[in-house]
């Protein structure tokens, strides 16, 4: 961390560009890659600071990986660092996604692309359900959590209530239900 003051924004951008470009294969393998680059190779942050950033990334809204990067960027260069790590980390994905979007809009109506997207659409539904399954296994461990999940499911799936409102209400309910235990 002492060396951190002499690290240039350009270098931070380049390292995070690399991380963002090769960050395939799920959160866990991404974090290993992160740690190798930042802790072992660059020695910008210590192992403890890295763990702290990962924890913070998971406790804050938004994508945990990006948030971990923002936290490290902030530790290195304050707000400028946070901006640069976000830009570096998201650059490649955004450019590729926009290129695919252009291609997608241009080929609208093409029969072959239509068939491919039909297959992919079905797979995405399977993917969503597997995310639900995995998250549920990790998060829903007592009956209270199960009630939160079930209520939300019915409120959106059957009653068609507004999900932003539901998230706010579940946050409030969580505060009421869980605050005693924490204090």
């Amino acid at each position, binding site marked *: 961390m002492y060396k951190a003051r002499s690290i240039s924004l350009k270098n931070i951008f380049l390292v995070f560009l690399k991380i963002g470009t090769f960050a395939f294969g799920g959160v866990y393998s991404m974090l290993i890659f992160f740690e190798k680059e930042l802790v072992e190779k660059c020695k910008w942050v210590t192992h403890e600071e890295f763990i702290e950033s990962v924890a*913070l990334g998971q406790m804050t809204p938004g994508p945990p990986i990006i948030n971990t990067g*923002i936290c490290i960027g902030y530790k290195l260069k304050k707000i400028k660092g946070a901006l640069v790590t976000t830009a570096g980390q*998201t650059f490649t994905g955004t450019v590729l996604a926009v290129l695919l979007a252009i291609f*997608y809009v241009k080929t609208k109506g093409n029969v072959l692309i239509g068939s491919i997207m039909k*297959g992919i659409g079905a797979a995405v*539904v399977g*993917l*969503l359900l597997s995310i639900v399954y995995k*998250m549920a296994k990790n998060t829903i461990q007592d009956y209270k959590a199960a009630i939160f999940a079930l209520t939300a499911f019915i409120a959106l799936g059957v009653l068609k209530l507004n999900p932003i409102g539901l998230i706010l209400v579940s946050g409030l309910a969580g*505060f009421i239900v869980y605050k005693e235990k924490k204090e």
Partner: protein
Amino acid sequence: MILLKFCLILFVVNSLTIGGGFMMLPVLHKEFVEKYHWITNQEFLDAIAIGQITPGPLTVMNAVIGYKISGLTGAVLAMVSSYLPCIIIVTLACRYYFHYKDSVIVSSSFQGIKPAVIGLLAAVAIPLGSTSIVDLMTFSIAVISFVVIAFSKTDPTFVIIGAGIVGALFL
């Protein structure tokens, strides 16, 4: 005006949902597909697929939707409004790390939000499933994808590419 609404929705979603990119899907689906009809169910699924096969978090799918709504400007604004709340919240949380970490309000309300968004995500699979699962073939693709991703460590990117190939050949 549409663009402003679009950015505002993304800003709110990214300020509220915890637990990764998938958790923003219920809100995005409600607002973009059901309420404003900016995109169809199929286009929503396609955006998820593109977000998944490109490196980085699923959030990049917002650039695809932004592009669909108003071209390059839409894509760039989508990314800015998705990541801006993260930058604001995380830098504040980082600065006041110990206050944030030990805050009862933050941890207890997120403890309620976390299981709730899982329920929301399950609910959103219903309209998306009824759009994309139309026959035995698409049903089989969905089931196989679920099993492979849920019970093995296979990268979902490969499953999506595989499903695309199957679609090209048989659908």
